[in-house]
């Protein structure tokens, strides 16, 4: 266990240090001469137009919600996929059929979203 996961934590630690060091290095080495224009929002040299406080289309939230649902389904498939060969030798085709039923139910949900216009972007 330790032999496997200790390196992961070391990698994560070094990656964080590397990221922080890179971002800080420009603050250390670069000049700091801020002016009002320099610190204003980018707009091709003109006065900035519009704000970022506008509302985002509801479709994006829909996508996020669909993602959570479907991604959870993917995670349910993984343990089955890893054990499939072994279980198939032991229990035969029923291993496949049970997952197939699961996927069919899942597909009905997908078709329902499709029919309701969940995948329309214009």
């Amino acid at each position: 266990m330790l032999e496997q996961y200790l390196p992961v934590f070391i990698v994560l630690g070094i990656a964080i240090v590397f990221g922080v060091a890179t971002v800080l290095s420009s603050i250390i080495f670069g000049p700091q001469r801020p002016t009002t224009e320099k610190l204003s929002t980018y707009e091709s040299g003109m006065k900035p137009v519009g704000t970022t406080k506008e509302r985002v289309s509801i479709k994006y939230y829909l996508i996020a919600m669909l993602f959570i649902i479907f991604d959870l389904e993917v995670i349910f498939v993984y343990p089955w996929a890893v054990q499939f060969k072994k279980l198939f030798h032991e229990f035969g085709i029923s291993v496949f059929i049970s997952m197939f039923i699961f996927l069919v139910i899942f597909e009905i949900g997908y078709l329902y979203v499709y029919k309701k216009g969940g995948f329309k972007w214009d």
Partner: protein
Amino acid sequence: MSVLEIIVFTVVKIVLILTVMLLMVSYLVYFERRVSAWVQNRLGPNRVGWEGVLQPFADVFKLLLKEDIVPVKANQFIHTLAPVIALFVAFATYAVIPIASPLKIFGYEIPLVVADVNIGVLYVLALTSVGVYAITLAGWSSGSKYSLFGGIRSSAQMISYEISMGFSVAGVLLFAESLRPIAIVQSQGSWMWNAWIQPIGFITFVVSAFAETNRLPFDLPEAEPELVGGYHTEYSSMKFAAFFLAEYANMIIAAGMIVTLYLGGYNLPFFNIESLGLANWLTVIIQIGSFFIKMGVLLFFFLWIRWSLPRFRYDQLMSIGWKVMFPLSLINLIWVAVLIMVFNL
């Protein structure tokens, strides 16, 4: 092995791989510029050093000495945090990709992968999901409308393609019976590549990898004509470089993952090197070579696609993700399961 030995070996491997990664990223940028120039019949950077080989270093030093600007409208903390996340993800993900079979040296048997975990594939999928945060937070915290739209687009795009990516990987797992990258490589042997067995899964995975790395034809988050620089419009100096590095590092990781999952990893194609009975170190060197050549070909493919295909419209991009890639990856999963049952592999 004792804890101390594990730490020493890991740190040595990380330092080596980090150096190789940074060099590869720098030269991928150079390579991209030269290939782009070649495709467009121009010269490209050829002044700094012989044929411009020192150009990437010149670029990095230039960016290092530039002023770090944080716009007044930006959220100071998150604006700084976003590039850190991007770099963190880019360099942590590489840890589980094996580049050769174990090296026997000084009586130790060292696996040539930083972290040989049995959940390797999940680790990669999890970290690439964290990568979405970097782009979304960068877009949201900049206080610029271009950044915001870039960030929103990018997050929607990445989560859409993650599902087909997940299902394509499930097809590989059916064969390998493990989430461990080394086991996946070994399950393919020298010629039974997953790319031959499950071509649909291979294609959906490659397309999803393009979308996940925001490469053309899926580079909507930074579509220059409409969004200036996309999510990194308001970034300068090394923070900009961080996003840039992360993008190219993600390309390299995507190529490494495709090689590991579908193209037989470090094994030589159609030829079992271990049957020759060569010395261990020679085998390892040949395997490293084979891995990097496969990766290089794939990276060239990435660049080639960039200059061959036009950018998708946003609704087309989302439609392909949900209406084409997703059903195709499901069909692939069923196909692989049926294949295993019929041929009793």
